């Protein structure tokens, strides 16, 4: 085995703290039963964020419409539970499949053009889906949202309770499974080619990487994972509304990822934790105006430089002017 192989493999090996972290996370619904609802929300947001990380952090596609896939997963899982059968795992699969299909169709649109074009196209797709969900009110309930979704017990045994313990454990379990898959994927040769494309598309093309195909696959996989997050939300809340397609959802998830650090899978998880706790605190102080503080946070974050936020030891180096890169 040559040097490059060992270096690549070492980077992808599981560390002891990762195992500890996941054990702690999986124990959270039982350790903090009164906070199970927020644990559930954090798990869903973390899943959504790491799916965005695959296209933003690893492939370098700036997307403002990731909520399209989230919403697609949410609506298809909710509709499946309402119209076909209430089994959660099958519903989750339906959500993932439908979002993956949508992602495969949309991946054609993100391959060409500049950042601005991609931004617009992704945003446009989310808006179109929102209009669809709004206008097809015989199916989706329109602006009132899709109500009356009743979920069956998980694995035929565990009922979803009001306290949210089952829901939290379920979301955490799905998060773990998909996280492991994604972690495997980004440390594989496939993931390495994605990073090559992100860093220099021209050179990646020159050494024979099929750029378009790789990006399309990454986008589709990310869409499927976002769909899983949406499906989890719809199943654990028993509700799907137009809110899942809203612009602020795409913006929030981007913020989550940036808080935690882009191009690093634990970034999504850490960001989700920080963001949810911050949102919870802020909205309990000012229920109506917490977006102001989120906005201020974003502005300061960018002006200071987002690389510096996750690396506190660089704060006092190189004067007061942040982000000279």
């Amino acid at each position, binding site marked *: 085995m040559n040097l490059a192989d060992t270096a690549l493999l070492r980077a992808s090996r599981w560390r002891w703290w990762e195992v500890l972290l996941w054990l702690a996370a999986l124990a959270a619904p039982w350790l903090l039963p009164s906070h199970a609802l927020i644990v559930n929300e954090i798990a869903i947001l973390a899943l959504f964020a790491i799916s965005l990380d695959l296209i933003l952090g690893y492939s370098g596609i700036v997307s403002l419409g990731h909520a399209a896939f989230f919403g697609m997963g949410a609506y298809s899982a909710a509709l499946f539970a309402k119209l076909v059968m209430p089994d959660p795992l099958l519903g989750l699969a339906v959500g993932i499949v439908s979002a993956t299909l949508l992602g495969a169709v949309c991946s054609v649109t993100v391959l060409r053009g500049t950042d601005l074009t991609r931004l617009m196209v992704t945003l*446009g797709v989310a808006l179109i889906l929102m209009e669809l969900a709004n206008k097809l009110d015989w199916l989706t309930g329109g602006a009132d949202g899709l109500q009356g979704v009743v979920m069956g017990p998980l694995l035929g045994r565990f009922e979803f309770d009001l306290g949210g313990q089952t829901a939290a454990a379920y979301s955490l379990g799905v998060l773990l499974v998909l996280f492991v898959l994604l972690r495997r994927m980004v440390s594989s040769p496939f993931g390495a080619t994605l990073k090559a494309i992100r860093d220099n598309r021209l050179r990646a093309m020159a050494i024979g990487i099929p750029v378009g195909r790789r990006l399309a696959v990454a986008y589709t996989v990310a869409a499927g994972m976002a769909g899983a997050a949406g499906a989890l939300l719809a199943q654990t809340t028993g509700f799907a509304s137009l809110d899942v397609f809203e612009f602020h959802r795409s913006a929030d998830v981007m913020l989550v990822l940036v808080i935690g650090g882009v191009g690093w899978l634990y970034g999504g998880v850490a960001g989700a934790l920080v963001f949810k706790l911050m949102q919870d605190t802020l909205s309990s102080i000012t229920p*109506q105006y917490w*977006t*102001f503080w*989120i*906005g201020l946070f*974003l502005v300061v*974050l*960018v*002006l200071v430089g987002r690389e510096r936020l996750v690396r506190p030891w660089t704060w006092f180096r190189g004067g007061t002017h942040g982000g000279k890169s």
Partner: protein
Amino acid sequence: MLTILFDGVAYGMLLFILAVGLAVTMGLMNFINLAHGAFAMVGGYITVLLMQRLGVPFLWCLPLAFVGAALLGAVLERTLYRPLYHKPHLDQVLFSIGLTFMAVASVDYFVGSSQQILQLPDWLKGRTELGQGAWMLGMGHYRLFIIAVCAALTVALQYVLARTRFGSRLRASVDDQRVAAGLGINVNVVFLSTFAVGSGLAGLGGALGAEVLGMDPSFPLKFMIYFLIVVAVGGTSSITGPLLAALLLGIADVAGKYYIPKLGAFIVYSLMIVILVWRPQGLFVRQAGKA
């Protein structure tokens, strides 16, 4: 039928005035500014509040809205935007979204979340009808006024860009910033003033559009996509591109809402996606120059 066309043109002209500043900033600095709608909102609110609280006549409010938004734009450009010109697009997107969120929440806090009603002066309220039957053309006086103002502004802008010394400096800076700076053009001043004028125009557009588009705190988010469509479809290299794109969008939107209300905004969004997939650089682009 002609009435719809007329309304569409008025709407398109309004969108053009709102978005032209954005086209210039994006073309100029390659800066993705999602907060452009916030300047329009500032202009709109200046007008509405001046008229409601102080009783300033409508015509006086328009220049004030322009000046207010332009000043704000200049201050923000100098303090916040300039350090970000050379940052990655992701940073710019995050920054401008943050700014938009702040603007939305602060307007909500200070003025309230309800939609603001603009009381037009009497001479703008009427409506003139020409012809009859299917070809009847009904022109609201206010829309006529909008078209007149916007057309005048467009001609003025085109003149400034194409004929004056400032215009040629601006075009030079857009094409190649380093060479322009090397030729002794003070690129920073050019950008500052352009950004200020662009924001001012957005403010003016917001003031003019307060009655047509409706003015509430979610304005920047609601219309962000429209401004972006105008810029992305029209391209950022000339002023006629965005103008045509804005007119197209205005007519398509008004006609779509009138004839097929069920489909709502589909037509516009789908059209945009198709156009952008087909011509990622926009419909009307010049081949030369730096992207």
